[in-house]
C-alpha cells in the first residue's frame, strides 16, 4: 500500500499520509528536545549534578543529536511528500533510531530500579518486614505506599513497552535465519528463544515490581521517582509511535518485490550483517551495553575522572592483551606473562639501581630497552620449548609461569619490596627543548596528511560512484560508500584539529626555556595539563582525573599492531598458522617461526607493560604480575579471539580491556561491592563468547 502511495495511487493514501505525519511528528520531537535542553527547560542528569548555567556532556550530545535527527526527519518527511522511493528507506532508519532512543530511555528507568533492587538484595534486607514497617503493619499493597499511584502507572506503561519490545524482537530473529548469503548451521529453535525471552521479560517485570516497592524505602522520595516517571513517558513517546511506524514500513516493504530490492536491508539486518563481519561483534555489543548501562545507572560514569580511571587501570594490561591476541590467533597460549612481567620489572629496577652485568648502572631508557630484551628472551624460550618439544603451549607456559616466578622470588628476599626510593636517588629527569615536541607534532601532522592523501581519493571516488548510481536510478542505490567517506572525513578533521592544537601548544613557547621531563613521567606519568598556564591553547585536566600517558602508548600500540595483523603478510601468516597449521605449512608459511615470533612479541609487550607499571609505582615485589595472565586472557577472549586459533582482532582486545576497566570502575560507582567484580566479569566473559559465537555462526558453518 505504501508502494501504491509512492506511486501516487489513491488506495495507499491513508497509510502513506499517516507515516508522513508520524515522520513529521518525529521532526518536531527531535527539534523540541534539542530546544528544551538548549534553553535549560529540560536539564539532564541527576539533580545534584545539574548546573543551570552550564551544559554537561549529556546535554551537549542530546542537543547535537536532536538537531541532526530533526534535520534527517524533515528531509524524510519532504521525501515522503514528494513520494521519493528512497524516503521509505530513510523512514525505516529514522523510526529505527527513534526505537532505539525510546528503548534506551525506558531501559534507563528499568536498569537503575533493577540495580537498586539488586543492591537491596545484596544487603540482605527482608523486603517484607521493611514494607510492613513503613505502612504501619498493614498488608502492603501498591496503593498503601505513598507514591503508589505513580508506581502503578509506571508499571503499566513499562509492561506495555515490554510487550511491544517482545513482539519486536521475535520477527528479526526469524528474518536473520532467512538472510541471504548466510547459513546458520543450527538455527536456534524459535520456541526456545521465545521461552527464554518470556522468562527474561517476566524476570524484569518481577525485579521492577519489587524494585518499585523497595525503592521508596531507601532512597529520597522526592527526587528520583519523579524524574523516572518523566523518563518513562518520554521513552514511550519515542518508542510506541516509532514501533508502529517501523512495523508499518517494514510490512510495506515485504509486500512489494520492487521495494524489497530497493530497500535492500532493513536497519536491523544491516547492523547484524555488519557486526557479523567483525571478529569482535560480541565485544562491540558488550561494550555498548555496559557503557550505556553504567551511563544510565550513574551520572558519575561520564565524569572525566571515571573515564580516566578505567582507561588508566587497564592500559598496561591492554598492552599485554594485544600480544596475547596475536598468540591466540596463531593457535597458542601464554600463561607466563605475569611472571615475565615480574622479571622485566625487576630487571628494569635493578639495571637502574644496582646496574646491569658488564654495562653497569644504566639510564632509564637503556635500562628499559634491556629489560624488554630480557622479557623477549624469556618469550623466545617459551617459543623454542614449544616447537622443539611439541608439548601444548598451555603446559609449556604453565611450567615457565612457575619457573620464571622463581627468578623474582629468589632475587627479592622474602616478602620485601624493592623500591627505587631506597637507593636515595632522585627520580631521573632529562631536559629537552620545546622544539622536539613541535617536531613530533609536525611529524604527526605529516602522517595525518599522508593518510588523507592515500585514502581520501579512493573513498571520494567510491562515494562519487555511489552518488552517480543514486542519481541514475532515481534515488535508489547504496549509500555505504558515501557514509564511509563522510565518517573518514570527520575522523580526519578531528585528528587534524588535535595535531594542529598540539603544534600550537608546543609552538607557543618555541625557542623558550628548556623543559624538564621525568623519564618515569614519559613512560607512564600522570598528565595534569597540556601547554603552560595562561596560554590560549592551554588544556587543564580536572584535578581528580588520573590520566596516564600509558593510555596514549596503548592506543598507539593498538593502531600499529592492528595494521600489522590485518595488512601485512606476517599478519596473514599468523591467521593461517592458527586457522589450519597444515595448510599454512603446505603453502610455505614457516609456522614454527611465526609462533616463536609471536611468543617474543607477547613477551616484548609484557616487558613494555612492566616498564609502565614500574614507572607508575617505582617498586617491585616478588609477586608482581601474579594472576595477570588470566585477566589478560579474559580480555582477549571477550574481544572475540578464538581459543582454538585463527580468529580474532587487536581492536577486539582493546574493547575487551575497556569492558574490563568499565566494570571495575562502574561497579564501584553504582555502589555494588567490588567483591562482585570477578563474578560479574565471569558472567560477561561467557555472555561475550556466546554472543561472538552466535554472530559468527551467522557467518560461517
Amino acid at each position, binding site marked *: 500500500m505504501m508502494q501504491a502511495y509512492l506511486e501516487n495511487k489513491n488506495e495507499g493514501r491513508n497509510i502513506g499520509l499517516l507515516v508522513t505525519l508520524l515522520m513529521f511528528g518525529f521532526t518536531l520531537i527531535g527539534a523540541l528536545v534539542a530546544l528544551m535542553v538548549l534553553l535549560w527547560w529540560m536539564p539532564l542528569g541527576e539533580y545534584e549534578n545539574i548546573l543551570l548555567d552550564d551544559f554537561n556532556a549529556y546535554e551537549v550530545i542530546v542537543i547535537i543529536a536532536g538537531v541532526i535527527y530533526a534535520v534527517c526527519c524533515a528531509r524524510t518527511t519532504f521525501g515522503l511528500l514528494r513520494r521519493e522511493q528512497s524516503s521509505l528507506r530513510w523512514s525505516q532508519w529514522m523510526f529505527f533510531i527513534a526505537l532505539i532512543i525510546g528503548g534506551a530511555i525506558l531501559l534507563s528507568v528499568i536498569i537503575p530500579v533493577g540495580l537498586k533492587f539488586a543492591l537491596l538484595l545484596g544487603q540482605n534486607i527482608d523486603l517484607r518486614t521493611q514494607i510492613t514497617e513503613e505502612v504501619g503493619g498493614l498488608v502492603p499493597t501498591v496503593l498503601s505506599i505513598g507514591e503508589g499511584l505513580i508506581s502503578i502507572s509506571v508499571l503499566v506503561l513499562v509492561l506495555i513497552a515490554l510487550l511491544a519490545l517482545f513482539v519486536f524482537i521475535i520477527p528479526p530473529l526469524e528474518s536473520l535465519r532467512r538472510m541471504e548469503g548466510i547459513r546458520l548451521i543450527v538455527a536456534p529453535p524459535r520456541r526456545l528463544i521465545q521461552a527464554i525471552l518470556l522468562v527474561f521479560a517476566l524476570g524484569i517485570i518481577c525485579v521492577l515490581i519489587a524494585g518499585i516497592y523497595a525503592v521508596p524505602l531507601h532512597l529520597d522520595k522526592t527526587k528520583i521517582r519523579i524524574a523516572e516517571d518523566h523518563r518513562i513517558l518520554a521513552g514511550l513517546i519515542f518508542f510506541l509511535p516509532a514501533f508502529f511506524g517501523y512495523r508499518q514500513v517494514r510490512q510495506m516493504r515485504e509486500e512489494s518485490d520492487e521495494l524489497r530490492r530497493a530497500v535492500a536491508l532493513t536497519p536491523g539486518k544491516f547492523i547484524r550483517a555488519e557486526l557479523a563481519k567483525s571478529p569482535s561483534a560480541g565485544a562491540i555489543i558488550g561494550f555498548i551495553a555496559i557503557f550505556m548501562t553504567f551511563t544510565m545507572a550513574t551520572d558519575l560514569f561520564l565524569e572525566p575522572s571515571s573515564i580516566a580511571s578505567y582507561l588508566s587501570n587497564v592500559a598496561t594490561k591492554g598492552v599485554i592483551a594485544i600480544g596475547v591476541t596475536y598468540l591466540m590467533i596463531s593457535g597458542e597460549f601464554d600463561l607466563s606473562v605475569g611472571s615475565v612481567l615480574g622479571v622485566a620489572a625487576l630487571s628494569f629496577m635493578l639495571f637502574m639501581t644496582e646496574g646491569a652485568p658488564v654495562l653497569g648502572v644504566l639510564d632509564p631508557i637503556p635500562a628499559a630497552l634491556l629489560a624488554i630484551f630480557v622479557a623477549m628472551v624469556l618469550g623466545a624460550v617459551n617459543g623454542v620449548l614449544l616447537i622443539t618439544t611439541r608439548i601444548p603451549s598451555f603446559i609449556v607456559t604453565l611450567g615457565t609461569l612457575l619457573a620464571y616466578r622463581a627468578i623474582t622470588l629468589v632475587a627479592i628476599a622474602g616478602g620485601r619490596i624493592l623500591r627505587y626510593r631506597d637507593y636515595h636517588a632522585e627520580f631521573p629527569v632529562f631536559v629537552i627543548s620545546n622544539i622536539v615536541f613541535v617536531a613530533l607534532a609536525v611529524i604527526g601532522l605529516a602522517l595525518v596528511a599522508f593518510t588523507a592523501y592515500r585514502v581520501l581519493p579512493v573513498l571520494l571516488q567510491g562515494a562519487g560512484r555511489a552518488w552517480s548510481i543514486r542519481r541514475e536510478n532515481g534515488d535508489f542505490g547504496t549509500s555505504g560508500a558515501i557514509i564511509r567517506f563522510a565518517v573518514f572525513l570527520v575522523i580526519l578533521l578531528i585528528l587534524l584539529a588535535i595535531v594542529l592544537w598540539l603544534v600550537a601548544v608546543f609552538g607557543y613557547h618555541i625557542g623558550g626555556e628548556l623543559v624538564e621531563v621525568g623519564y618515569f613521567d614519559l613512560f607512564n606519568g600522570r598528565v595534569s595539563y597540556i601547554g603552560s598556564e595562561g596560554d590560549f591553547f592551554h588544556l587543564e585536566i580536572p584535578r581528580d582525573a588520573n590520566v596516564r600517558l600509558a593510555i596514549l602508548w596503548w592506543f598507539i600500540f593498538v593502531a600499529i599492531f592492528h595494521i600489522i595483523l590485518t595488512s601485512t*603478510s606476517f599478519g596473514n601468516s599468523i*591467521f*593461517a598458522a592458527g586457522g*589450519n597449521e597444515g*595448510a599454512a605449512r603446505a603453502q*610455505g608459511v*614457516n609456522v614454527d617461526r611465526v609462533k616463536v615470533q609471536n611468543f617474543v612479541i607477547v613477551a616484548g609487550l609484557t616487558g613494555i607493560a612492566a616498564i609502565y607499571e614500574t614507572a607508575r609505582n617505582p617498586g617491585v615485589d616478588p609477586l608482581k604480575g601474579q594472576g595477570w595472565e588470566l585477566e589478560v586472557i579474559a580480555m582477549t577472549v571477550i574481544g572475540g579471539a*578464538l581459543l582454538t586459533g585463527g580468529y580474532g582482532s587487536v581492536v577486539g582486545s582493546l574493547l575487551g580491556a575497556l569492558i574490563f576497566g568499565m566494570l571495575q570502575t562502574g561497579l564501584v560507582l553504582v555502589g555494588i561491592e567490588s567483591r562482585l567484580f570477578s563474578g560479574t566479569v565471569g558472567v560477561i566473559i561467557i555472555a561475550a563468547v556466546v554472543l561472538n559465537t552466535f554472530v559468527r555462526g551467522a557467518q*560461517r558453518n
Partner: protein
Amino acid sequence: MEYKQKNPDALVDMIDIHKYFGSVQVLRGIDFHVDRQEIVGLLGDNGAGKSTLIKVLTGFHTLTRGQIFFDGDGVDIASPHDARELGIETVHQDLALVPLMSIARNFWLGQEPTYKVGPFHFMDKKLMASESIHALADVGIHIRDPEETVGTMSGGERQSIAIGRAVYFGKKLLILDEPTSALSVGETQKVLDYTIAAKEKGMSVIFITHNIRHVYEVADRFTIIERGHKLGDFYKSEVTENEVADMIVTGQIPERLRLYEEVAVGD
C-alpha cells in the same frame, strides 16, 4: 650414501625414498620419476603411501633416506617453501585451505604481493582481491566476493579454489592429490582439461586419484605403489584400464605385463 640419477632427463627423479614415522615404515625404498611434460597417475590402495610420497617431494615431510633430483640437480627440499621456489605447486588431499580466512587471503597465502611505504611492506589487498577473482575465473571458477571466508563455501568450491590456486602459481610441476573427490561431473571434467592444458603449456603433472577412469583419460604413465613399495611403472599404451584397476586391488602384476616390468626395472 651417494645416489645417482636414474632418469637423467626427468624433471623429478626420486630415488630410494624411505620415510619412517617413528617405527611406522610408510615408504620403503621407492623410485619415482616424472618426465618433462608428462602426466603421471600415482595410484595405489588407501594407505599405500601416495600422499606421503608427494609430501616428501613438496618438503612437507623430511625424508628418512633417499635422494630427490629436480631438473637434473640433486636438491634438498627442506620445506614447502623450497618446493614452491622450485616451481612445484600442490593441491593436498587434506591441507588445502584455511577455513577462517577469506578467499583472497587463502589464494595468496605464503606469497602475498606487497607494496612498500618507506621501509614497511604492506599487503596489496586490492591486487590480491582483483587478481584472485581473475585467476579463478580463468580456470572457470566464478566467485561472488573474494572477501568471503572459505569456511562458508561448499567442499567442491573449496577444492576448486585450491586447484585454481595451484594452476595459477604452478610453473614446472603440478601435484594434484585427489583433486576431484568432491567435484561434480562438470567440475571434474574441467580439472581434467586443465591438467592437459598444463601439460601443453610445458608443465608436468602428478595426478593422484582413486578414480581410474579419470586418470586413465589424461595420464601418460601410471606408477602403482603398494604398501610402501613400488609395484611398477606402466605406460598407457601397455595397459588397459581394467588391468590397472586389478593391479591396485590385488597388488599383483598380471602375467602378461611381467616382461615390461622387468625391462623397466632393468634399465
